[in-house]
């Protein structure tokens, strides 16, 4: 029996823990590299002021890193605790990247972190610098493996369903690891981390400039951060475009939701700004937008790389569009139900020792196996993700991304001309920009994860089948436990971080 309350609490818990974790991860990904840059400059110039600068940013890195670790451990085990059916059904594939992450990435971080913080006088200068770089490499390698895992959930490849075991089994590890979707997730998410960390450094340094404190320290930090930030933000835009292009091919429903595109056209326009009609449902005649501005043909170019490409809308995907070769979800549900029932028949016949009946059922299953996941859906509506949230989150992310490119460019130009301090308004925007960075970063994950609902594994396993056999109260109680604990830790983190910033780089014993 499916208890929708339980599934939704489990989803809420995952959203909560993942979003908390993602507050801290991007800063770790980027600040680790910035620390490595700063320390490299120190080692090459021998200037002790760069060492002070490096140590200051490392202190902030450490405060952020600790809570990143704390919020991260839950996620790995949550696949088991709250999504145990998922863990069984795809564990043969999904467990591998998590184990590899432990072996290849986490130990690098754990080992060299201690050297980075406590090894200044215990190891050679070169060994210390090497360790700092290793922490950066290790953090970003962790991101690689978890994003390979996530990319596989978005675009499951390299596996097959084994009807005897009633689970999915891996056939090709390399195709899982080198999946274009996974690599695109990795490059986009890590570079967004570099971007956010650059904003963080600019924000803190701008605050010092406004307060007329630590001027040289702040200018130096900004000089490195705005170059890194500008390069990262351009790369984020590039990988984002690639990511959306891949989404159009692998998750057309997500793309349709991102664009609130209900009826596909050739060519299709892009709606950069719009107010979504929240009541619209698949198949009805309501207007999709209350208000919208359209750039003609633009979505065809972005999603199909052609001026006249057909981009399927939610209605095309729901009910099929034979002219453009789109199979409808209604049809997939019908065939999915055949797959589910023939699988059950196959197992019963096999257990009863009736090999003829088993072979017959297996043949039906084989004809419909590709739609197995759809057999668990109750209606077409269920296959459509929340459109408005996906649409707005996407625009927040993209809009912010473009703004950050301009911001880094402005900072770079003024920093080169040494005129930052005469621009208090810009510095104020710089201070605030890190919060926009966090917002954009969270919005990106909302697009990725909300946009693929109801699937735990795209097209294969809906969340309503993936969850654990728990009662609603248990999961709800856990949700509030995490909410309470993580919020308390976040408050502690922010208080410690802001105090360290106000103490400043020459603060002495902290």
């Amino acid at each position, binding site marked *: 029996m499916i208890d929708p309350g339980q599934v939704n609490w489990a989803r809420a818990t995952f959203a909560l823990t993942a979003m908390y974790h993602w507050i801290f991860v991007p800063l770790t990904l980027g600040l680790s590299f910035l620390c490595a840059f700063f320390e490299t400059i120190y080692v090459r110039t021998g200037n002790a002021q760069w060492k002070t600068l490096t140590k200051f940013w490392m202190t902030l890195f450490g405060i952020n890193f600790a809570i990143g670790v704390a919020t991260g451990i839950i996620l790995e085990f949550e696949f088991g605790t709250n999504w145990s059916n*998922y863990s*069984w059904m795809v564990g043969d594939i999904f467990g591998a990247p998590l*184990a590899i992450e*432990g072996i290849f990435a986490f130990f690098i971080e754990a080992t060299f972190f201690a050297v980075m913080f406590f*090894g200044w006088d215990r190891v050679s200068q070169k060994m210390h610098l090497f360790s700092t770089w290793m922490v950066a490499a290790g953090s970003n390698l962790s991101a690689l493996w978890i994003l390979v895992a996530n990319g596989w959930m978005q675009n499951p490849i390299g596996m097959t369903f084994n009807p005897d075991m009633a689970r999915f089994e891996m056939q090709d590890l390399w195709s899982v690891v080198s999946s274009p979707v996974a690599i695109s997730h990795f490059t986009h998410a890590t570079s967004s981390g570099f971007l956010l960390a650059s904003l963080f450094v600019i924000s803190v340094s701008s605050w010092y400039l406004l307060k007329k404190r630590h001027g040289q320290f702040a200018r130096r930090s900004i000089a490195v951060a705005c170059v890194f930030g500008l390069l990262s933000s351009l790369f984020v835009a590039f990988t984002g475009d690639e990511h959306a292009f891949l989404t159009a091919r692998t998750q057309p429903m997500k793309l349709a939701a991102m664009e609130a595109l209900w009826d596909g056209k050739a060519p299709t326009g892009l709606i950069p700004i719009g107010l979504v009609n929240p009541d619209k449902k698949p198949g009805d005649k309501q207007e999709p937008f209350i208000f919208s501005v359209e750039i003609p043909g633009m979505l065809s170019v972005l999603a199909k790389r052609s001026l006249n490409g057909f981009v399927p809308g939610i209605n095309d995907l729901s009910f099929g569009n034979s002219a453009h070769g789109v199979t409808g979800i209604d049809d997939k549900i019908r065939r999915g139900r055949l797959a589910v029932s023939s699988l059950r028949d196959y197992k019963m016949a096999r257990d009863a020792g009736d090999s003829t009946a088993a072979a017959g059922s297996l043949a039906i299953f084989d004809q419909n196996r590709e739609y197995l996941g759809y057999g668990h859906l109750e209606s077409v509506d269920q296959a459509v993700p929340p459109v408005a949230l996906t649409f707005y989150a996407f625009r927040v992310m993209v809009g912010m991304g473009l703004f950050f490119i301009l911001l880094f460019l402005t900072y770079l130009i003024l920093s080169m001309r040494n005129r930052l301090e005469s621009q208090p308004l810009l510095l104020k925007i710089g201070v605030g920009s890190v919060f926009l960075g966090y917002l954009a970063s969270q919005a990106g994950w909302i697009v990725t994860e909300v946009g693929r609902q109801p699937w735990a594994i795209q097209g294969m396993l809906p969340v309503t089948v993936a969850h*654990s*056999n728990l009662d609603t109260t248990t999961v709800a109680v856990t949700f509030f436990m995490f909410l309470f*604990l993580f919020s308390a830790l976040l408050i502690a983190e922010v208080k*410690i971080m802001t105090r360290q910033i106000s103490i400043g780089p020459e603060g002495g014993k902290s």
Partner: protein
Amino acid sequence: MIGNLEWASLQQLWWLIVSVVGALFVFLTFVQGGQTLILTLARDEHEKSLIINSIGRKWELTFTTLVLFGGAFYASFPLFYASSFGGAYWVWIAILFTFVVQAVSYEYRRKPNNFLGQKTYEIFMFINGSVGILLIGAAIGTFFTGSNFTLNDYNLVNWTHPLRGLEAAFSLFNLSLGLFLVFLARVLGALYLAGNLEHESLVDRLKHSSFDNLVCALPFLLYVLVGLATMDGFAVDPANGAVSMVSGKYLHNLLDMPIVLVMLLAGLLLVILGVVLNRLTRSVRGIWPAGFGTVLTCLAIFCLAGYNNTPFYPSKADLNSSLTIYNASSSHYTLTMMSYVALAVPFVIAYIAWVWRQMDSRKLTVDELTADEKSY
């Protein structure tokens, strides 16, 4: 080479790999042991700081080993991962909570404006070292005493006890194993700290403490060993996979696998040797024999649970739902690929050892902590 191995051989290999990771984790719980020693051994803030900064340079290794233990189990025995985490829900959530609060405690404990106060973070550390380790021990105990679950035709787990895993802590055997691990962690913590710190009176107390904690651990160890030797155990019939209760099963396992018996006895002797070395001589290197002994002992315990036609995660509620290394494992392909991946483990251990040597070559002193603004 690995690709030619039989599925059963790979399943046995992976049980060994998971067991090694688990055994290394127990050795590394010297960090958790150290966390519980702060309250009883440190006489002033300097001593407390010495202890916390010494184990604070290693805590992430322990934490990461636990995460790898979970990841390796997931990749190699996904049905265990799904059944145990999704079934024995509360015991795992409780264990995880103690590790979440541990992860921030070193960094935040003495930072100004830390919201919860220094004492709270020290309590977090203590809870992690006591309750956390106790529950892990209780969970491992269920490898022998069994759990309350059934699996349906699609291998989906249903837990039949309302406490969802916490009931494990109410068995004397599981509780004894948990308490043994808590005291063992304290023994190891005291041994590690004695070798890592330069502080005459504190080191002297640490050397005594490792002995006292071993004495505390012994009754629980005895209960576990006698229990293992006398209890009815879960056995699988290799012909048809049916599970039944067999009297003296684990004693039989020991006698059938003499190497495991040797590992168990040698392991325990080495732990005792390490403690005696520190207690009776001027040496402070007892952590090494005791640590190696801990790894051997835990390996033996895991081998008892998983090999020789024994279900490693037995079900009391429905014997035939019990998990064996054969019915809970990943596919032949996945185990093969992961075996290639595991070839990297010796390199990982090598660089950890290399960095460890560099960082621990000089003992930690109060002066160094006072001079270092980054110290915990």
